[in-house]
């Protein structure tokens, strides 16, 4: 029972991180209808900015203030980066086919990875130890052991999800985001500047990815320039699983993938966990071709 609860907790933690990344994929898909492959690299950069802020800028470790500062710094840098990437690489392709944008996104992703791996321009190829940003301590609740880091991860992830929900549903710009994703033409006809909303969406999604990167690094305290690939891929799967373009779907998908991965890890099939995650995805898509919460569009003839 304790074992189960422990795993459940770990699964929810991982799932919350996947959900943060998946939301970025899904938001961008919502407004632009394409898969932003560079998203997983923004996630990686998020972790590195936090690392940098401690190692080079000298933010204190093991402190709540320092940890929050590093987190906020990561999110801001990633947000700016997301906006810049969109302006430089994707915006000129607005009228082009999705495939063109997709390949550009792959190019951007490769560029970020390779610059990051370069020792002169970036961080170099070797893994780096990630510092303990927040005070770390083991807490015991009965037989259950929880680290303060885990609590921070959970707390931050849940608050960010809450803030996102509030932005999307209760602010003017959030409403505009929804409008653009429902119908970009109609949105422009009520006076919404679609380009601005798209920029904002990229910024918001990238900030969440940055936060996801920091939280992920706190759990798996070694970071390297290719660390984004696998979590990115899984978050992408989570977004599709939930129904791409659907925000609650992305959160649900992230949670599901996190739980499946954690529980499979605890069994003999542990080395198969990625395959099982994909297998579940495929099975679900075959029964619900538009994902769990997605709506199938019927083509007009």
């Amino acid at each position, binding site marked *: 029972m304790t074992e189960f609860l422990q795993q459940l907790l770990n699964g929810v933690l991982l799932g919350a991180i996947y959900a943060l990344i998946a939301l970025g994929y899904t938001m961008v*898909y919502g407004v632009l209808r394409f*898969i932003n492959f560079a998203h997983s690299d923004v996630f990686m950069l998020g972790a590195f900015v936090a690392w940098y802020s401690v190692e080079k800028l000298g933010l204190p470790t093991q402190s709540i203030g320092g940890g929050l500062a590093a987190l906020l710094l990561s999110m801001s840098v990633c947000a700016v980066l997301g906006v810049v990437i969109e302006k430089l*690489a994707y915006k*000129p*392709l607005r009228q*082009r*086919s*999705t*495939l*063109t944008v997709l*390949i*550009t996104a*792959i*190019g*951007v*992703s*490769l*560029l970020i990875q*390779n*610059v990051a*791996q*370069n020792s*002169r*321009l970036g961080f170099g190829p070797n893994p780096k130890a990630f510092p303990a940003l927040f005070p770390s301590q083991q807490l015991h609740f009965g037989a259950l052991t929880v680290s303060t880091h885990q609590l921070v991860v959970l707390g931050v992830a849940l608050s960010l999800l809450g803030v996102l929900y509030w932005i999307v549903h209760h602010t003017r710009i959030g409403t505009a985001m929804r409008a653009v994703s429902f119908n970009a033409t109609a949105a422009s006809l009520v006076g919404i500047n679609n380009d601005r909303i798209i920029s904002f969406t990229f910024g918001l999604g990238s900030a969440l990815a940055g936060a996801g990167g920091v939280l992920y690094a706190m759990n798996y305290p070694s970071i390297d320039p290719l660390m984004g*690939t696998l979590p990115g*891929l899984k978050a*992408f*799967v989570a977004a*599709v699983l939930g129904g*791409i373009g659907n925000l609650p779907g992305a959160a649900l998908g992230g949670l599901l993938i996190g739980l499946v991965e954690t529980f499979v890890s605890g069994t003999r099939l542990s*080395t*198969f966990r*990625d*395959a099982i995650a*994909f*297998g579940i*995805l*495929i099975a679900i*898509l*075959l029964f619900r*071709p*538009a*994902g769990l919460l997605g709506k199938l569009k019927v*083509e007009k*003839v």
Partner: protein
Amino acid sequence: MVFPVAQRWLLAALILAWVASAVSSSIDPYFLDVVMGVGVSVVLASSLNLINGFTGQFSLGHAGFMAVGAYTSAMLTTVVAPRLGWHPVLLQWVFFPLSLIAAGLLAAVAGLAVGAPSLRLKGDYLAIVTLGFGEIIRVVLQNMDMVGGARGLTGVPAYSNLFWTFGTAALTVYTVWALLNSTHGRGFLAVADDEVAAEAMGLDTTRYKITAFGIGAFFAGVAGGLYAHLKGYLNPGGFSFDKSIEIVVMVILGGMGRHAGVVFAAILLTLLPEGLRELGSRSVPNPFGGAAWSLDWIKEMRMILYSLMLIVLMLMRPQGLFHRSERRRRGA
């Protein structure tokens, strides 16, 4: 017997490959390796072009089909072949091609298995299912001790030579060409252009899409077999999602469904990193006198340059590098 023009080209290409292969011992081995790699890329890109370019689907799992083929043929030549006690020449010239066919067939079965259920899915959803399938193959291979697991499979004999690589490349190019330049084959293009209209014109779009997956996967499997016997070593990590992306990039850069364009893009993109590596080992004379300038930085920067080029190309030439309407020309 008089061969039609196209078959004559195929025959000429095969003979050329044979001759080149006969003199290959006098070619620089590194160069040879690169050239054979080009042949494998051509097979991979042309076969993916049939699925993604001509039939308008979107597969991100080509590396998975390649992996199935690579491991199948490598297992045949490393485990089965030694027990036969055949002469090495027979092994390379009879057993190896048979193993390639087996590799292709098994990959084709995988292709049909992915293609069939995926028909309900379109666009991004199809892409993710093929991607997922590729990853599953990789994880399964990583966990199969029989094929070396994550450590990889070593000691694969070096049966791939210029004849096999270029012969297969020529055959793939011919097959795709022959298929498209026929009334039945134009159906692939019609399905890509407008599925609803294709269905209304009596085309069984389902069959077309599955056929494209089957044939595409077959050649990806054969390419995998060639690759295995070229490198002499297989590692599941080599068939990751990145490899699939690499092939997709060739297809898109070549101009999605432009046959010749995709072949050129495959050649170019395989040579480019090697070319940059080669360039990086040289130095240019310093025009101001003094020590020559080393171009070492290119070696270090080559992947950065590659990705930058990709972005710039997409911004400048979104239709692909070789945008020339080859479909307009009439075939047989």
